């Protein structure tokens, strides 16, 4: 059984505009998203800001409700669960947020922060066993037991993210949802946290939904990657397949924009232009205004179709796209 399955999820935010006489303005943020997180796999959600990747992870965590579609966690559809049943299920999925400076309560010490989930779910017999669990947890993320009595402000960014990871692991979850867990960290510390996440995934046989805007980081950690754009999945493939055979023009453009730390090679590379052309806002394909390959085939909304084994891509122009121009990394 797959830990998480998402089927045809839509999400629309509505808001009333001032003096609009009851008319509502609708903003679609997720459109027909279907994904599957396999056991002990890492699924990467990659896209620019505003593409809906965080909204999707919030829906899975039950922090937002999908407008339609199914979210199935551990075989159960979450919209049909009662509150107590969802609370039980929620134990299985824990989350790590982007900014370790704002995601830890400054007035709680580390022991309280990591122990809070244990308290909520009542997962220990007595104070001694609670203490024991906490010590195990801090050790597993590379901190030491004496850190338990300290407060978040005494720690650096990387150490804080370790605390956040320990808190997420406290309930022994099956699924970790990591929303940009390293993008607020320094480069030298980022590598430590990425190694830690990989180690935890292997040791605990976890599945992970890894939300990121950084392809290099995604390649290091992910088994499958879904590329999102304006609330839709544009390309969905096993990670290595995606990097050796990117199909969608958007994926190519994203690859070309990633800076390469080598002055000789970087100066030779050319970034694919992603400047939006005006007047194409209502095009059926959301990427069309920025796409270099728009042609007559693009007059209908592109559907996610299998283009190679296990490799899905939503681009109507794909058969007409010049293969030579593809930008593999």
């Amino acid at each position: 059984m797959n830990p998480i399955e998402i089927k045809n999820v839509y999400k629309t935010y509505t808001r009333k505009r001032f003096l609009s006489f009851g008319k509502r303005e609708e903003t679609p943020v997720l459109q027909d998203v279907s994904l599957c997180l396999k056991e002990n796999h890492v699924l990467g959600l990659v896209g620019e800001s505003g593409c809906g990747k965080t909204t999707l992870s919030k829906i899975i965590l039950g922090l937002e409700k999908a407008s339609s579609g199914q979210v199935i966690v551990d075989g159960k559809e979450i919209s049909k669960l009662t509150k107590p049943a969802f609370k039980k299920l929620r134990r299985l999925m824990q989350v790590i947020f982007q900014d370790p400076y704002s995601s830890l309560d400054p007035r709680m010490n580390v022991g309280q922060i990591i122990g809070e989930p244990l308290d909520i779910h009542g997962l220990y017999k007595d104070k001694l066993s609670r203490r024991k669990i906490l010590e195990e947890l801090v050790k597993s993320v590379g901190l030491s037991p004496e850190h338990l009595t300290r407060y978040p402000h005494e720690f650096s960014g990387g150490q804080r993210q370790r605390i956040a990871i320990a808190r997420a692991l406290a309930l022994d979850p099956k699924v970790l949802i990591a929303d940009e867990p390293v993008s607020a960290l320094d480069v030298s510390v980022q590598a430590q946290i990425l190694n830690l996440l990989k180690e935890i995934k292997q040791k605990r046989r976890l599945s992970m939904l890894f939300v990121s805007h950084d392809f290099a980081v995604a390649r290091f950690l992910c088994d499958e990657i879904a590329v999102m754009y304006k609330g839709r999945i544009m390309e969905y493939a096993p990670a290595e397949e995606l990097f050796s055979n990117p199909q969608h023009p958007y994926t190519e453009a994203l690859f070309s924009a990633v800076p390469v730390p080598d002055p000789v090679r970087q100066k030779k590379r050319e970034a694919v232009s992603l400047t939006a052309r005006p007047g194409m806002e209502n095009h059926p394909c959301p990427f069309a205004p920025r796409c270099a390959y728009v042609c007559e085939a693009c007059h209908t909304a592109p559907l996610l179709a299998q283009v190679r084994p296990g490799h899905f891509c939503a681009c109507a122009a794909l058969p007409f796209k010049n293969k030579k121009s593809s930008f593999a990394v």
Partner: protein
Amino acid sequence: MNSSSALLDVQNLRVSFSTEEGTVQVLKGLSYSLPKGKVLAVVGESGSGKTVHALSLLRLLPPTADIEEGHVLFEGKDLVSLPERQLRKLRGARISMIFQDPMSSLNPVLTVGEQLKETILAHRKISKLRAKAAAIRLLKKVGISDAARRYDQYPFQFSGGMCQRVMIAMALALKPQVLIADEPTTALDVTIQAQILRLIKNLQQQTGMSAVFITHNLALVADVADEVLVLYGGLCMEKASVQAIFKNPLHPYTQGLLNSLVSINKKEDLLPAIAGNPPVPGKECPGCPFAPRCQRAEKRCFQTRPPLFGKREHQAACWLLEEKA
């Protein structure tokens, strides 16, 4: 580099902050010179003093900070001791700055055009009409389509990348000789980041100005910089041309930084991370600030601070290089 070709010459800059726990030195004697028409990248992690260094060049530091020592020479004038009124004439006009977060650097209650015009009128004695025309030209130059209409819009109607373009337009409005860009792309998406970097680089080459590009991301440096200065714990660790930094990094910290970059070109099993955490300002070790995290650190690394070793073109502050020098 001899000082005659240098546009900006920073000599032994020391900056400290007074805090509840006493004075904390954030910059501990930084020296470099910025040649004409070149881009110098200052690379450092949070707390390394890179932003403090940028702010101290134009004396924009908060009141708790104090430039203890050092000189910033620009066209024969020392910006550290220059009277405020004269310095104000230089700020924005001869030396301008772009900040990290474009959304919060613009005034939300003034239109974008108004803010651009204001910059121009503060330094030039021209009519408002001509200033407006100049502002629209600038918006076009930084790649904003439909500039005349955009002129009357407010910052919230612009995306992050567009706001940064406006900031760049503002910084370039008076054709400065030096542009200081403090993490100009950190708040932006990768695709937008690539566009903004290209824009800065193109404008820099067109106008022949010099730039100090401050970043925490070594990968970006490869694209824009001619020379690189690696900052750690308020000290210069290594100084070299961009090719030399990537091909032959001398300092263990630079080597570690380069190794810990995640590559998009291959899948790795484990990243060679630098162990430990960046130093907290004021609590560094008396020797080399990197010593506690350095695998090759010896006893003297913890006790005495290493000077810069090596030739002028490529210098690094590490005791390991002493024998070679």
